[in-house]
Structure formats: structure tokens, C-alpha cells
């Protein structure tokens, strides 16, 4: 089996991964609201881009749907997702890169 192609992590994808980093599974709408809240509306996902992004992440093996979550009535309509190990690794690597960038920027006093 070939290694799934790693998608370029756009801000939207990154935020979705970040969103799922908490140890609980979330459904699409929940992710959408959380991303919007966390970024103060800077990253705004519509339903189309949301599910498109989830597809890409799933395809790359970074997240996985949870087949059955017996959570009352909306279980029929919603897929719940969680990070895979690979997803966790990727997220931490990416964050690491960002941290280095942030560190560099701070040394040069780009930000405080």
C-alpha cells in the first residue's frame, strides 16, 4: 500500500485538526462552530468546504470517522470524527514548525 498523499495543510485544515486535538470526537457542525469561534470568524467554513476538508483529511489518514456514536437522535445524520495517530503526529509536527516560525519572528521583534 502506498502512503496516502499528504495534503498541504491550509489554515482551514489545520484548524480542523486542532479542533479535534482535544480527546473527544466531534461532528461536522460542531467543528464548524468551534473553528469560527476560535479564529474569531477569520476562518469561516461553509458546509461544502467543511465536508470537502474532512474528506481530504480522512483520505490522508489524518482523521477517521467513528462509525457508531449512540448520541441520541442526531446520530443518524452526523458523522463523528477523531484524530488518528498519524493525524496527531502531523498536527504536532506542523505546530512545531509554526512554533519555530513564531520563535524566529519574536527574535526579530516582528511580534511581541
Amino acid at each position, binding site marked *: 500500500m502506498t502512503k496516502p498523499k499528504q495534503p498541504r495543510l491550509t489554515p482551514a485544515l489545520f484548524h480542523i485538526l486542532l479542533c479535534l486535538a482535544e480527546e473527544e470526537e466531534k*461532528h*461536522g*457542525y460542531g467543528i*464548524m462552530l468551534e473553528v469560527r469561534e476560535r479564529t474569531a470568524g477569520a476562518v*469561516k*467554513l*461553509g*458546509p*461544502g*468546504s*467543511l*465536508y*470537502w476538508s474532512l*474528506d481530504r483529511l480522512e483520505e490522508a489518514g489524518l482523521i477517521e470517522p467513528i462509525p457508531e456514536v449512540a448520541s441520541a437522535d*442526531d446520530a*443518524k*445524520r*452526523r*458523522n463523528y470524527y477523531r484524530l488518528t495517530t498519524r493525524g496527531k503526529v502531523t498536527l504536532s509536527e506542523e505546530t512545531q514548525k509554526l512554533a519555530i516560525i513564531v520563535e524566529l519572528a519574536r527574535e526579530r521583534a516582528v511580534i511581541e
Partner: protein
Amino acid sequence: MTSPRKGIRFYRALLQTLPAAFRARHEQAMLQTFSNLSEATGGKSLPKIRLWLHIIADHFKTAGRAWTREFFRRKERRHGFWDALFSDSRLTLWMLRRNPSFTIIAVTTIALGIAGATIAFTVVNGTLLRPLPYDTPESLVALFQTESNGPRLSAAGLSSPQRNPTSPGNFLEWQRDAAEVLDVMTAATPWNPVMTGLDRPDRLNGLRATYGLFEMLGVPAAMGRTFTRADEGSPHILVLGHEMWQGVFGGDPQVVGLNVNLDGETYEVIGVMPAEFRFPPFWAVEAGMWVPLEWEPDAAAQRRAAFLRVFGRIKPGVSLEALEARMDAIASRLEEDYSWSNAGIGVRVEHLSEPGLSVVRPTITIVSGFVLILLLIACSNVANLLLSRGAARQTELAIRGALGASQSRIIRQWMTESLIVAVLGGAAGLGLTIALKGPVSVLVSDLLPVTSALDLDYRVFGFALGISVLAGVIFGIAPSFLASRQQVGAFLRGNHTTTGSGNRIKTGLVMVEIALAVSLLTGAGLLTKSFIQLTNHDPGFSRKGVVALDLSFGASANGQWEERLVTYRTISRKLESLPGVAAVGFVNHMPVGSDMWGVRYVVQSAPVPVPGSEPRATFRVADHGYAQAIGLTLLEGRWFDGSETSEDDPTLVINQTMANETWPGESAIDQTIRLGTDDDGPIGRVIGVYRDAGQGQLRSEVGAEFYHPVTQDPTTWNTDVTVVIAGVDLEAATLTAARESIWRLDSEVSLTNMRTIESVLHTETSRERTSMAIVGGLAFGALVLSAIGLYGVLSFIAAQRKREIGVRVALGASTGSILRSGLKRAMTLVIPGLAIGMVGSLAVGRFLESLLWQVAPADPATFGAVALVLGIVSLGATIIPMRRASKTDPAIILREE
């Protein structure tokens, strides 16, 4: 976007524009998300508008991404398909090179089948599918007169009594009253004038047509111009056909403006038509020039002599049915207004192509059907070959299966092989078609309408490709599925024989082949028998030793009637004195293949019939020598002696049918009939009865007919006559002398169309001969192919049972007993095949009925002969492989195990 429900509906509609796969995964969740978002707006307008702007922008972004991805995914899938096809093809070609004998047999078999089918299609394409070479030909029609009591005084050159010409009176009424539905209506009649001013007078085939002809057809002249309604009043103009321009005028580029002498009058050539132009497409098809047709005022009013063929162009938007309805109404009115001439007369409307095609359609359909049967037999043969090869390739299949090749992958590989064999066969078949195009055109040219052309156009190539692929699928499908079902386990356990279903399919295919071959053979047998009947049929006149020659007096016809009679007598005497000549006679229309004029008559001794229901007879005009020259047999009374004059009452010699119908049980001699339907018509007296002789067509039933002496008939005797010369072994020199002596008498007479009675009968049976030859060839091919198929399957069975046979021979079984058991096996294939084939033959017989003459579609003799032929051939195909098997040394076989 007032209510959330509406919003959901709209969003759902929007989602339909996404790729199906994406929708299937997320539609429900997306709708749910949307409805959550929608609820969150709290129903306030501004947030709602903002939401919608966001949703729509998001949707377009997603749709763009999803479709792009979908596009690449599909392309990738296609790449996979082409890659596999490429590698399958490479493997197949390698395999075909390794097995040249298989390749040659399979490709040749298919090539023959495809060539047959493609040639048949070329004919269909050149005739049935080919539009007539006129502008928008689909709106051109032909209009015929129909008569409830058969044609009257008409040149019924066509076989169907329901396609009769009409009279000028009727034509003019039709033309006036149908003007709302027809753009142009034209009438035409053949005109064969003698052209003088050349070395020898020449009779030309032409057509006189009313001025609207070319306007109706919408075909411009290639050189000069055509005549139009603007030319009315100046009928001495002439439009030449390409062939006549080339043939008679040597392709003279200055021909337009030239004056020519036709029947003693001067005509000016005003134009030349393009090479492919022909008109009319049926009936007077040899017309090579066109001249305006005009009438004298009193001729225009006459309604009795029906000699005009009528054509028209339907106005745009008017249907054929509407035209029919209009013409029916006109015909009913004419029946009322002119009951004396139009009682029982109707109108038949057809597309212009129909009269020509209706003659050839049955033959073409039948031959095409037979060709497809042959192709099916070829396909079964190749399927059998592939099945046998499948058995030989079990090792390969088992290994591939063990290596994980899926069933569909193996089917694909095998179908690729079949299709490649089929396409190679198709290419070879197309090559064969191209090579055979010339001979086939010659063979079928007599049968086809003049407007047809056997072109190898893109449709023919498309057909050849299509039929090849179809054949590949047909013969590839069973072997492929069997191959894919090959059990790896069974193979490894050492069970190397073909599966039972493989053998069942093979034997089933052979049975089908035998059945198809039987049907084809029966068809060929029926046609052959019909042809033999027709050629051995006694036409009532001499079948050989008679030569006929058409005389046309042309301009010199202007002389007196009495002078003409003298000319005839002189010619007769001169010809009789030539060596080898036994008798000479004149007639206006030769029997078989010439015009037939008809007249109604009233029997003097019978009650007066209802107007329009008078009996009708064909009549011919002849001189005193004719009966002996053509070989009529007198049963009663005598023939004319030449002493009859126009002052006496008309004398008639009638045929047996007319005598029996009119005066059953009594002698016809000295009985009288009134000719025509007028009360003061001439009274004819019967002086003789002759045995029925063929009239219009050899195969049509003989109706009432009588002869009338030339010496009493100055009116119907026109300028064209046929002189009939009887004699044993007439030499070419005698015939040349005959021509010369006639020209010495009158240098303006044209002499054309010299033919022997044998050639007339040959032409008359050409359709039968050609269809018999074609179907016979196909049937022979079918017989050979199915014999090969039977041979192949029995060889295969023999090979499978080699061990058993070896053991039996070792135990002392005789060759005879081995053969017997082989034959028993063969008969289990042949007998059911024959039985199914016989049932099929009944259908084939029905299908052929229109071509058969005096042969029942289920003729027992033919069926028996076919069964016998098939039996003998299958016996041969069985004995050879079985003998070979029984001769093998048992030691060798047993050692192999």
C-alpha cells in the same frame, strides 16, 4: 428565502450540482448543518442574507474543487482501462503470431462472413438507403391511376396493375384541383424519336414531360439550361442527358444551340444535365433526353387513352396522407362527373422512390437475411475454435487464476482476443468487399433501380466496423465466460478435461450451425426449383430460333397507311427469301417484356354489364405471318390470311383463356364482341383460338388476350413495330442482309434492339437467376462452414476420448465399432440440428414466397433433398476424425498418460 423549509429545499436543489459520490457521502450531514446554521440566524433578515451569501460562495468553491477532483479520478480510471487494453492487445497479437493456423482459419472464416454482410449492406446502402438524386427528394411523389377493373388501353409496362398511367383529361383536373397541396405537378410519357442526319437513322430514348419537370426536381443543367414553365408554347427544345451527350454527340462542348432532326422536325439543344442525373427513376428508365410535352386542345380533353405518368412535389408541411385524401376526393368527383370514362378509377400516391424500390426490396431483404445467417454460422465456427483453444489453454488460465487474476480481468483478456480476431477478420472482409465490388456491381446491376450506386462510403466502413465488433462479441462471449469459470482447484487435482458446460456449448453451437445451414440450403433449393420451373415453362410460343428487331419509321411515318402496308409486305417477302428464314411476321408488341395495350369489350350474346364492369382483354396487332413466326399454336379456327381489309368487320383471334371465360362450354368461332364501351363501337368476329401464350411477364398469370390484323387497324398501329424472323441457325450474315434490305427500301427507318427469343427469356428470368445464384452461393458457403464446424467438434471429442478409444482398441474393438459409436454421437448433433433447421426452413419458405413460382414454400421434394445432402456431408465430417482416432496405436496413447 422566507421560511426555513423553503431554504432547505433550495439548498437541497443546490447540492444536486455536486458530483454524485460526494453527495452520497455528505448530503444528509450538509443539509443538517445548513438547517442548524439557518436556525442560528433566528429568522432575522440581515443574518439570513449574510448566511446565504456565505453558503452560495462556499457552494461554488466546493463544486469547483469536487468536480476537478472527479474529472481527474475518471481520467485516471480511463488510463487504467487503456493500459490494460494495450497489454491485452499485445498479448493477443503475440499469441496470434504463435498460432498461425488458428489465426488463418478464424480470420478467414470471419472475413468471409463480414465480406458477405458488407457487400449486402453496400447494396442496401446504394438502393434502399440512397436518396434519389434530386433536391429534397423526400417531398417528391408519383401519382398513379388505379382501376377497379384493371387497366384500359394503357401501356402497362409495370407489373403491378395498381400503378397505371392516366389520361391527359384526368391529369389536367388533378393538376388544377391539387394545387393547394402540390407545388408542381408534371406529366410525362416516353418518346422514342428517330434522329436523322447521322450515318444511319438512330432511335433515341427520350421523355416528353410538361414544362414544370425540372423546376419540380430542382436539378440545374450542367451546361446551358433546362426548360421551365416560361418556355410554354415553344416545345421544340431539347435537354440532353450526360450519356446521350457523350454517346450520340461525342461530348461536343458546342452542343448547346445545336439543331437536331427528330422524327422529321427540328429541335434545339438548350442544355445538358449532370452525369448522375436520371429521370424517371422507374418505368422509362432508359430516357436520355427530355423534351416539353404539349397537347392539342381536343387531345387535352380526352380521358380514355391513359399514357401519362404523373409526378409532383408536395408543398412544405403537407403530409402524404393529406395528399392522398385530396386525391381521393378529386377521383370521386371525376367518377361522378365523367361516369362514362372514370367509373372505378382512383388515384394512388407514393413517394417517388417507392415504385422502383418495391420491385427490388423483397430480393434485397431476402438476400440480406441469408447473408446474416451465413455470418452467424461463421461466428459459431469461430466460437467453437475459441472454445477448443480454451481447453488447450487451461494451464495458462489456472496459473493466471492462481496468481490472482480476477474473473472480470480474464473475461476482458478473452474478449480482447475475440475482438482483435473479429477486427482483423473485418479488415480482411472489407478488403474482400473492395475487391469484389466490380463483379458484384455487374452481377446485380440488372436488378437494381437506375438511380442506385454501389459506393463504398463512410456508412459502409462504419457498418463493417460495427458488424465486426458485434461478431467479436457474439463469438467471444461464451468462450470468455467459460474461461473465467475455470476452476484452479480442479486443474491442480489433474482434471484436465473441459468442463461439461464447455462441451454442451460446443455441441449446441454445432446444432445451431446445422439448423441455420439447413434453412439456407432449403432457401436455395426452393429458388433453384422455382427457376427450373420457370425456364422449362412452356410460354406458348417458340423458345428458340426466333429473332426480333424493332423498326421505327420516324419521319417517314407521315406517309399513307396503305403505303405502309405495302412496305410491310415488301419487307416480309424480302426477308422470307433470305437463306435460313422460315417465316416472317410483324407485331406491335412482342410478348414478354413489352407494352400491353388493353381494351374493354361487351359480349354480344350476354346481358349488358354495368358500366365500368365490362371485361377487359389485352390486344395486340399483327400481320398474317406472325403466328407462324413466333410459334403460336392454333387450337380452333384459323389465323389471319392477309386478305382482311378495313371495310370488313374486325376479325379477332383470341386466346384460350378468353374463349373459356367468355363462352364457356361452347365454340368461340364466329361469336362477336363489341370493342370498347361505346354503344356504336366496332363489332369484332372471332375466327380462331390459340393456346395461351406469355403476355407481360413470364411468371404472371395469363389473362384474356386477342390479336387483331394489321390490315384492319390503321389507328392503333403506331410508327414502331417489331419484325419477328423465325429460322434455324440464323447466321449473322443473314441478319446483316435483313437490315440492309430494309434500309434499301427506306433509308429513314431505324432498326434497333435486335434480339433472339432466348435472350428475351434470359432477361425475363434474370432476377430469378441472380437471386438463385446469390442464395445458392451463400447456401454452399453455409454448408461448408457447418461441415467444418461439425468436423471440428467431432475431432475434439475424438481427441478427448483418445484414451478410451485406445483402451477399447487394445481390448480388441474393431474400427467399425469405434466408427459406429462416433456416428451415434454425431447423430445426436445432426438430427436435432436438422429438425430445428426444417422448422426454420418453413419460415424461410414463407419469407421467400414472393420470389417463388409454382413451388410451395414447404415443397417436400426440396426438403427431402436438403436432408439428404446434409446427411451425406455430416457422414463425411464424422467418419474422417473417427477413423483417425481408431487408427492410433493404443500403446502411444497409454504411454502418454
